[in-house]
């Protein structure tokens, strides 16, 4: 295979990968609802429809966005502390605890959703934002723990020791030297927690109720019941939001996503 043919194949695969997203964005600007590509014109009609739709706005801003922000903050706090405890302070039973924190990745998302749904009904917890937040935390915390643990592992201990030789106490050295250095891990963990929460569909399908409909769930039901390009507009907004966050994460923290 020559370099040229490899490049052609790669471009085609990328097109395959990006095709649905490109189409969605294109359709959102088409003035007609005929789902045509290339779009017959440019119009913001469906965006206007989006902003006029009570249900879409609610789903985007009052549910998904709120949940994602809360999840991001909580996951970073809980996950960050856990990572520090795991890497720096825990010596016995470390593998076990580590496994526990990474366990949610091993469980299929729909099972997490179903289990939470049954559990919530057992403990008589009604559908609420809290229920969504807790579910998304399960997805987000492993990301944060992994990012921060990796960041901590990459830090040279001798830097803390240098600080101590210059007069800092151990907690001071930790706070002033190590914590700023894991700042980027924490921030990247926060960004991924946000994205994971905002994009989740599998848990939300089980756990959301009539007044806690997330954007992906609303899109899902709209596709089934009434597919019109407002969905495309809503989707494009989500794509832009997530792409922007990813770009920031990649630029600022030179991220490498490991799955």
């Amino acid at each position, binding site marked *: 295979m020559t370099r040229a043919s*490899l490049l052609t194949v790669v471009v085609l*695969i*990328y097109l*395959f990968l990006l095709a*649905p*997203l490109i*189409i*969605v964005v294109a*359709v959102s600007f088409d003035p007609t609802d005929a*789902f*045509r*590509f290339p779009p017959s014109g440019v119009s913001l009609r469906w965006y206007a429809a989006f902003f006029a739709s009570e249900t879409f706005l609610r789903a985007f801003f009052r549910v998904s966005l709120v949940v994602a922000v809360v999840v991001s903050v909580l996951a970073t*706090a*809980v996950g960050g*502390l856990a990572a520090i*405890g795991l890497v720096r*302070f*825990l*010596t016995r039973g470390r593998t076990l605890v580590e496994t*526990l*924190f990474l*366990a949610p*990745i*091993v*469980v*299929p998302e*729909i*099972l997490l959703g*179903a*289990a939470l749904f*049954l*559990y919530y009904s057992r403990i008589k917890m009604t559908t609420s934002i809290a229920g969504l937040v*807790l*579910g998304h935390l*399960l997805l987000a*915390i492993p990301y944060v723990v992994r990012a921060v*643990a*990796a960041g901590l*592992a990459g830090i040279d201990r001798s830097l803390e020791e240098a600080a101590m030789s210059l007069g800092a106490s151990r907690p001071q050295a930790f706070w002033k030297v190590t914590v700023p250095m894991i700042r980027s891990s924490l921030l990247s963990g926060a960004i991924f927690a946000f994205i*994971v929460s*905002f*994009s989740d*569909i599998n848990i939300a399908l*089980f756990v959301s109720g009539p007044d806690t409909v997330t954007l*992906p769930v609303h*899109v*899902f039901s709209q*596709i089934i019941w009434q597919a019109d390009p407002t*969905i*495309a507009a809503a989707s494009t907004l*989500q*794509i832009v939001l*997530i*792409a922007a966050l*990813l*770009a920031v994460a*990649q630029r600022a923290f030179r991220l*490498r996503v*490991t*799955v």
Partner: protein
Amino acid sequence: MTAARGRVAFVLLAPGLTMLTLFLLVPLGLIVVISVFTYSPTQLWLPPVTTANYQKFFHPYYLGVTWTTVRIGLITTLVCAVLGYPLAYFLARLRSRWLGLCLFLLVTPLMVSSVIRIFGWLVILGRQGLVNAALGAAGFARVDLLYNEPAVVVGLTELLLPFMVLPLMTAIETIPRSVEEAARNLGAGSFALFRRVLLPLSLPGLVSGALLVYSVSISALVTPALMGGRKTRMLGNLVYDEVLTSMNWPFASSIAVVLLVVTGAVMVTYLRTMRVLARRVGRP
């Protein structure tokens, strides 16, 4: 471990551990328990322990769904491997100026909600969609591209391709360029190079990617629900229906347990393979 360190560790880990116990372990435990209880239309489940729910699995219909799930999982994994290898190789050998952009283009679809990507496919493949519009314009009859198994495979492949590419790319990066050049110098054409050098040396990455893709695809819900139609139902659809529609929670739980065991085993193997790979690369 000194007492002071132990205390600090406890404080730091307590919130996370509590959270995971209460909202991961307990709910999953609950599911396992419910799966052996008896179904009751009025009270959802009753204590008499029974294996009826697992036995229900052996009904031809449910076996059929299981077989469909496994089949779709395997085909998706295979297609992802075939499409993913050239892409992974390309990225592994790319100079850093373009790598950032290419990775960004790979990861962004991954992070966008799957419903959105499926919506895009519906537009492309639907009866009134793009492909059919093009066919119609060229004078051909419209074709039903959706609501069948190939459609689900297409949707899942596009969804999960990055999961295959990323570990594979990492694995290929560990192969020094000079080893490839040595193979070429000794007379290897592209296929021989792939078969004799690249494939054996990147196998851990390929296995990792395959495990990941397989385990996510067998637990798919949204893709088959929106693209599969009535004929193509997977275990994920079953769980959803039994939990939210039929309200047969014991049966739903038994399906969930089966899926959990299979996926769990696959994912644990995956994580182990990734750890071996990471050690080779020297990254934590």
